C-alpha cells in the first residue's frame, strides 16, 4: 500500500454516504450508508448489476454529484462541501474521466480533444502541446494526432479518451465502463493500457465495469448491489 506524501491513509475516503434521487413523487434510494476507502496507487474495479448505483458512486468520488448524506474525501479535500466553482477547479486538477462512449468532441482533432483539460491551466500553447504529445505517446497514438474522431476506430477513440484523462497528470483516473462499447481485442488493448498506467506510472484508477474480464485486471474488486458494498460478488 503506497502512501502519497500529502496524506496518511487512503487517497479516497467515502463515509456513510446516502444518495437519493427524486423522480416525480417517488424517492429512489440508490446508495444507502455506503463507505469505501481507496488507497493511493490502487486499480479498483466496481462491479454490480445495472441500477446498482456504481456509476452514481463514481460520480460522487469524481465530484460530479453530491451525496444526500455523508462525506467524500479525496486527499485532504472534503469535496462534498466544495462550492460548484471550487469543485470544477478541483476536478480540473485532480480527476481524469474515461467514458464508455468516449465522449470526444467530433469537431476537434484527436490532439485538440486531448488538449481540452489543459485549456483550464495557465500553460502556454507550446507547453500544452508538449503535454498532449506525451499523453498521445503513452497511449500509442502519436501517428493519429490530426485525425478527427470519426476517422478513428472505437479502440483508438477510447485511447484518445484516456490520453485526455491523463494529460493533466490527475490524482485519480475514473473510468465508467471503458471497454463497454469495444470488441474483445480492442477492449484488451485498453485494459493493457490501464494496467500499464497503474503499474508503471502509479496512477490510482477506479473503474466501473460489468465485465469480469475487465475486473480481473484490477488489483481489487468490490461489488455493489442495491446500494450496498461488499467484497463478494452477489449471488
Amino acid at each position: 500500500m503506497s502512501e502519497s506524501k500529502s496524506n496518511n491513509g487512503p487517497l479516497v475516503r467515502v463515509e456513510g454516504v446516502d444518495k437519493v434521487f427524486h423522480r416525480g413523487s417517488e424517492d429512489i434510494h440508490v446508495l444507502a450508508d455506503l463507505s469505501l476507502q481507496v488507497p493511493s496507487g490502487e486499480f479498483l474495479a466496481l462491479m454490480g448489476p445495472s441500477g446498482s448505483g456504481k456509476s452514481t458512486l463514481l460520480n460522487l468520488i469524481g465530484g460530479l454529484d453530491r451525496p444526500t448524506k455523508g462525506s467524500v474525501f479525496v486527499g485532504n479535500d472534503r469535496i462534498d462541501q466544495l462550492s460548484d466553482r471550487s469543485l470544477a477547479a478541483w476536478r480540473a486538477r485532480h480527476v481524469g474521466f474515461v467514458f464508455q462512449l468516449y465522449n470526444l468532441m467530433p469537431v476537434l482533432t484527436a490532439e485538440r480533444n486531448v488538449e481540452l483539460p489543459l485549456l483550464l491551466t495557465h500553460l502556454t500553447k507550446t507547453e500544452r502541446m508538449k503535454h498532449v504529445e506525451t499523453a498521445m505517446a503513452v497511449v500509442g497514438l502519436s501517428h493519429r494526432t490530426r485525425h478527427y474522431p470519426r476517422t478513428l476506430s472505437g479502440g483508438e477513440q477510447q485511447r484518445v479518451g484516456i490520453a485526455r484523462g491523463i494529460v493533466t497528470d490527475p490524482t485519480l483516473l475514473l473510468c465508467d465502463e471503458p471497454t463497454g462499447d469495444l470488441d474483445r481485442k480492442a477492449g484488451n488493448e485498453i485494459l493493457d493500457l490501464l494496467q500499464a498506467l497503474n503499474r508503471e506510472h502509479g496512477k490510482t484508477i477506479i473503474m466501473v465495469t460489468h465485465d469480469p474480464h475487465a475486473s480481473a485486471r484490477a488489483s481489487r474488486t468490490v461489488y455493489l448491489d442495491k446500494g450496498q458494498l461488499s467484497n463478494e460478488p452477489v449471488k
Partner: protein
Amino acid sequence: MKFFHLIWCNLKRKKLRTSLTLLSILVAFVLFGFLASIQQALVGGVAMAGADRLVVRHRVSIIQLLPESYKARMERIPGVVLATHQTWFGGIYQDPKNFFMQNPVVPDEFLNMHPEIILPPEQLADWLKTRTGAIVGRKTADRFHWKIGDRVPIQSSIWSKADGSRSWEFDIVGIYDGKNKGIDTTPLFFRYDYFDEERQPDRGRGLVGWYTIRVKDPAQAAEVAKRVDQEFENSSAETKTEPEGAFIQAWAKQIGNIVFIVSAILVAVFFTILLVTGNTMAQAVRERTGELGVLKAIGFTNAQIVSLVLAESCLLTVLGGVLGLGLACLIMPVLAEKLSGLLPLFFFPTRDLLVGLGLSVVLGLVTGIFPALQAMRLRVADALRRM
C-alpha cells in the same frame, strides 16, 4: 484567447445551418445600412446646420418674398453679424427629372456665411468678375460632366426675363466641395445682381426668398430671432426667424416621422433575426448536451460554460454584422448614384456604422444568453447519461 479554436470549431459543426444563420444576419445588417442611409438622406441635414445661423422667412409661408432692403435693417440689430439672402429659382436643366437647386446669391456674403462650402479663391475671384457666372457643386458637375468654362442653359418655371423668355444662361466659373460628407454639393449658385436686373420688373424685382443671419453668440440665438421678428412686425412683410437647425428639422418633419418609421422597421427586422439566431443557438446547445457535460466533468466552471456559449453566438452575429455592414458600405454608394435625383444626401454615415457594429455584439449576447444559461444549469451526471 486560447478558447477561440474551440468556439470556432463548434460553429463549423453544422456548416449549412451556421452559414444560413450567418447569411440571415448579414442581410439584416445590409438592411440596417440601407435604412440608416435613408434616414440620413431625409433628416440628416439637421446635423449639418450652423449653430450660429438663423433662417428668416416670410411669416405666412416660405413662398412669400421679402424685400431686399431688409438686409440693412437686420444687420443693425444687436447680435447680428451678417445677413445675406437667397431665392428659389425653380429651374430645369434639360429635363424635370434632372432636378437640382439653383439659387441666386450675393457671392462673397454667401461664401462668408457658409464656410462649409469650399471654393478655391481664384474661382471666387472669377465669379466676382463674371456677371453671368455660377458655381456648381461637385456632385452636379460630375453628374452632367460640366467643366469650368461651360455655358449652361436653365429654364425657370417661375422667373421670366424682361424679354419674356424663361431661358437663363450661366457660365460655370467654379466647382465647390463640401467640408464633409453631409454637405449637399448638388446646388448651383449664381449672382443675385444678374438675376435682379434681368427678371421682369413688375414681378418681384427687389424681392428675395429668405435670409440667413449669422449671430455673434450662438447661445443668444433665440433672443436675436425674437428681435428680428419684432423689427419687422406690422410691416408689409412680417418675418419668422428660427435657428437653422430648427428650420431644417421642421422641413424634414413635413415629410413625416421618418425616424419613427425607420426605427419601427429596424425593430421588426432585428426581432426576427433574434428569433432565427436564438433558435439556432438553442438548437446547437440542445444537441451538445453531452459534450457540455464532458466539459463540465473535465472541470470547466459554469462561468466558463456560459462564456463559451455567449462567445459562440457573438462570434456568429459579429461576423454576420461585419460582413453585412461591409457589404452595405459597398452597395450604398452605388444606390446613391441611382437615387441622386430624389435623395441627394443619401449615404451611410460612419456614426451609424459604429452603432451597427455595437448592435451586432448586443445581438450576440441577447441570442446567446438563454441557451447559455440552459447549458450552465445542466447537471453533469444527467448530461453524461443523456449521451
